[in-house]
């Protein structure tokens, strides 16, 4: 069975390592914070100026002055700090953040990503995504394997305006976990109950399938 959004978030949470600072994008990536292993310590960076972001506040304790990059009310963890936007992107551009997780409309086998514009139809802007993808060493894309029309989002080349070039290192979709290297998607794991054939059918770009493709372990 393909993963739902929560399942994708749970699988991404397995990629976190002790001592990492992590920036989570809007949407599925935000959910990752709920599934961090108790064995590790990570801190979440929000590009509007927070390090050590905590969960949503209890009802009635929201503070209009304390929001995340998705404009949601949040809280601070002990040891948190606040800073301006220039310092926030100094952290990002200066590679002090170990992992960036973000959504995408398209990813190419070269690691290009498109997620900010559909010409003539939608232009919300890139926000901090272009800085994040141009800077981070370790970028995981969280997305559905196909779009609403059933078309693959893992392409030979992106058709939409790019957010960044040759930057995505890993993709976790509802169907699979994949690594990008040598201009190809390398299949790492299948979602529970999903066959290699299904993944192959849903992937337009070059897909490298090893002999053994284990099934994800999701709690």
């Amino acid at each position, binding site marked *: 069975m393909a993963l739902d959004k929560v399942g994708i978030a749970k699988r991404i949470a397995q990629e976190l390592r002790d001592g990492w600072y992590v920036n989570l994008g809007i949407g599925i990536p935000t959910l990752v914070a709920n599934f961090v292993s108790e064995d590790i310590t990570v801190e979440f960076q*929000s*590009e*509007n*100026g*927070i390090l050590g972001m905590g*969960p*949503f*506040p*209890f*009802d*009635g*304790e*929201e*503070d*209009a*002055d*304390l*929001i*995340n*990059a*998705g*404009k*949601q*009310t*949040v809280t*601070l963890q002990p040891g948190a700090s*606040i*800073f*301006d*936007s*220039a310092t*926030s*992107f100094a952290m*990002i*551009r200066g590679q002090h953040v170990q992992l960036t997780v973000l959504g995408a409309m398209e990813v190419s086998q070269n690691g*290009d990503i498109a997620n900010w*514009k559909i010409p*003539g139809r939608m*232009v*919300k*802007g*890139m*926000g*901090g*995504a*272009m*800085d994040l993808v*141009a*800077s981070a060493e370790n970028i995981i894309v969280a997305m559905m394997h196909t779009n609403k029309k059933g078309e693959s989002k893992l392409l030979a080349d992106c058709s939409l*305006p*790019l*957010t*960044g*070039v*040759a930057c995505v290192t890993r993709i976790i979709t509802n169907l699979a976990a994949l690594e990008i290297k040598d201009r190809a998607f390398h299949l790492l794991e299948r979602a529970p109950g999903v066959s290699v054939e299904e993944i192959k059918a849903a992937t337009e770009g070059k897909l490298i399938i090893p002999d053994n493709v284990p099934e994800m372990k999701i709690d």
Partner: protein
Amino acid sequence: MAINKVVANAQEATKGVENGMTLMLGGFGLCGIPENCISEMVKMNVNDLTCISNNAGVDDFGLGLLLQKKQIKKMISSYVGENDEFERQMLSGELEVDLIPQGSLAERCRAGGAGIPAFFTPAGYGTEVAEGKEVREFNGKPHILEHALTADFAIVKAWKGDTAGNLIFKAAARNFNPMMAMAGKITIAEVEELVPEGTLDPNTIHTPGIFVQRIFQGVDYEKRIEQRTVRQKG
């Protein structure tokens, strides 16, 4: 005694804001926006503005109020979702829009205030953002040259301020406010609480008063929350 920057109110603070000017406005979403000055500029009916602001407000609040009345000619922003009127004006071509990566926007404002005319950044390389810009490789990685931004007026919102113009922001309402304060030819600060000089600890000031030309205590802050997300106790 420190140099006194106090003006009476938003009306006095925005004196000199004229049609066709370039403004910087602090805030991220609706968090930390200069509500009083925005309302005042709606009243003043000043037009053809170029507004540099990370976002463009929502339909009926923040910069959305100026957009409704078509007072804005051009927006320079990083993210403009959450605003139908904005999208309509942009897609119809009524509104010019220059979209900039958020980190480049922040750094370009800081550069404008810091006398750095241009700098290299990796953000946007290989994308539309890089079109027409100089590309240069550093440490084996391509970067693009970005230029400083300045404004006729920078309008920021702080939590506390003193008569000398020193500002302290609260939590994530800090965001773009400090860099924009640096980059305005004239910088207006509206604050929730205005205190006498000597009241704030010099070691805790976020924006030194030298960057602020006019300061006043704002009134009736709505501080609207865009996405009220909560969890239940127990």
